[in-house]
């Protein structure tokens, strides 16, 4: 018997991201003040970033270099001719009442990146996400406190240390279809800028900020739904959760009419795990862009572009693909290793030094990563060189030491460095792989434990592990595990 339930409407979600990356220069985009985070209020200010009359901004050449490199890494076309524009809005975080940005001639356009999503079963899906544009602009200051003074008037306090800090704004095409895809896109952008060494990607300190544009529409509908902007997410998980929440809210609004979707900016409320409306009066912003008269246009010659392109490192997507195709790693392993450039390069150096790729991957993401996490250290802090790790892996593969011994000496190698081979010899840790020597040790372990032997022969086969333990104890873990198992099997049967 079937009852025809009303067909459930399927929805399509359209998401685009605007990502602001703070470029890691020493000084501001148009003046000599420092960009360092966390300084005392208003210690990194000067007449230019405050826009005082008679001052002239001059572009920091490193900002241009970083922006072009980012554009190239995002597979964008670099504009041979580009310019700055003034974006006008009145808000006290902006000392000049306009922000110097780029409007119709951004430095880079028409790019794309490839993201890779790995599901719980380890299956990878790759997707190309379009990058509409990348442009350079200055950051605004920070309203740090609001209160009411003695006369009863409300005021705000402003810190302009961040005003004029260089940003690259990266705008994606509306190609993202879920919270998970959007979060992965943002992670990939961070990986890319970190690989390039142009942005530290620290979301807590605001060096990487993502705004989300999102709309839903019934599948098959041609027109886009009403677009809502969400801000204020300070982690990749928060991006995913904010989007998932907003998708549900918008679908619910369409189906029940309990809520309405209006074109607006909403804030992600981390405490409440929801988005809330930041009601802003209609028509209150109209940026009235016009060309910045105080700055010259920017021309990037083909030679200059190629010189910068030649300095780009191998990027995460290429590494992920290579690790899977050429080195035979799983998608999961490739993604973990590639996430951080230092880790990826260390892993590659271990493989280049002759280690098996899968074993090298296991050591780097397993015991070494665990040690680094516990000790709150990074790969730069350890004494174990990639060559020495390759040597250690070689000692296991050729049967000189057991994996267990390798794990035991790892902390010493990480802290003191040196050749694992020498260490193993000095401490007499070479594996016992001589069959007759092992047989004698195993026979003794059996003879010493007649009760356990009797129980084993009576069918309690789990006791085999007990005997392995006894052998390992007697040899300080040096017994060749494979050979031990073989001989033990034979001797236990009697």
């Amino acid at each position: 018997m079937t009852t025809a339930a009303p067909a459930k409407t399927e929805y399509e979600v359209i998401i685009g991201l605007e990502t602001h990356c703070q470029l890691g220069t020493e000084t501001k985009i148009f003046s000599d003040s420092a960009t360092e985070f966390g300084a005392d209020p208003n210690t990194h200010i000067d007449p230019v970033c405050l826009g005082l009359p008679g001052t002239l901004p001059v572009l920091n050449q490193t900002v241009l270099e970083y922006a072009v490199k980012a554009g190239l890494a995002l597979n964008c076309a670099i504009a041979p001719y580009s310019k700055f524009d003034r974006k006008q809005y009145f808000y006290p975080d902006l000392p000049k009442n306009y922000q110097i940005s780029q409007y119709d001639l951004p430095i880079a356009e028409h790019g794309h990146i490839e993201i890779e999503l790995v599901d719980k079963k380890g299956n990878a899906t790759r997707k190309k996400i379009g990058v509409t544009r990348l442009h350079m602009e200055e950051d605004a200051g920070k309203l740090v406190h609001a209160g009411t003074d003695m006369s009863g008037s409300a005021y705000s306090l402003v810190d302009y240390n961040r005003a004029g800090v260089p940003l690259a704004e990266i705008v994606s095409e509306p190609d993202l279809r879920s919270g998970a895809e959007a979060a992965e896109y943002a992670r990939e952008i961070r990986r890319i800028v970190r690989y390039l060494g142009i942005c530290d990607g620290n979301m807590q300190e605001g060096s990487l900020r993502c705004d989300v544009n999102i709309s839903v529409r019934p599948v098959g509908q041609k027109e886009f739904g009403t677009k809502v902007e969400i801000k204020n997410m300070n982690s990749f998980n928060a991006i995913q959760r904010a989007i998932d929440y907003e998708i549900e809210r918008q679908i619910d609004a369409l189906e029940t009419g309990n809520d309405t979707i209006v074109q607006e900016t909403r804030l992600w409320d981390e405490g409440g795990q929801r988005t809330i409306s930041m009601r802003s009066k209609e028509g209150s912003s109209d940026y009235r862009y016009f060309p910045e008269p105080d700055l010259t246009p920017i021309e990037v010659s083909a030679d200059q572009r190629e010189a910068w392109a030649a300095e780009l490192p191998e990027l995460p997507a290429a590494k992920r693909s290579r690790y899977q195709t050429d080195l035979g790693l799983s998608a999961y392993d490739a993604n973990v290793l590639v996430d951080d450039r230092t880790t990826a390069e260390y892993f590659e150096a271990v493989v280049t030094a002759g280690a098996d790729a899968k074993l090298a991957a296991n050591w780097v993401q397993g015991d070494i990563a665990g040690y680094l996490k516990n000790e709150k250290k990074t790969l730069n802090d350890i004494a174990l060189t990639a060559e020495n790790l390759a040597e250690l892996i070689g000692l296991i593969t050729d049967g000189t030491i057991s994996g267990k011994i390798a794990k035991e000496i790892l902390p010493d190698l990480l802290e003191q460095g040196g050749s694992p081979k020498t260490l193993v010899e000095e401490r007499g840790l070479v594996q016992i792989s001589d069959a007759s020597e092992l047989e004698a040790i195993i026979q003794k372990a059996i003879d010493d434990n007649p009760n356990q032997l009797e129980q084993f022969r009576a069918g309690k086969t789990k006791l085999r592990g007990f005997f392995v333990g006894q052998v390992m104890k007697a040899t300080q873990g040096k017994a060749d595990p494979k050979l031990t198992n073989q001989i033990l099997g034979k001797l236990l049967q009697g």
Partner: protein
Amino acid sequence: MSISLDEVRKVALLSRIALTDDEEERFAAQLNDILDYVEQLNELDVEGVEPTTRAIDVSNVMRQDAHSTYENREGLLNNAPDRDEDFFKVPKILNG
């Protein structure tokens, strides 16, 4: 070119300034005078002339990424209409 009263009100809103009715009328007239004056440029024949954003032909004026601290920080803070110790103090502006 003609600026309507509504446009004057919109610009006033964007600039966060309050205008009286008289001022709206007066500024509409003044803005129109300015635009009419600039309008004369339309008499020029620009057929075949590439649009430009600048009158001087110069590009790529840039500086090294080298840090220096501006010496007169106190002067910058004192120059503002109001300060509160290390901060610039401004009237609270509600969003929108």
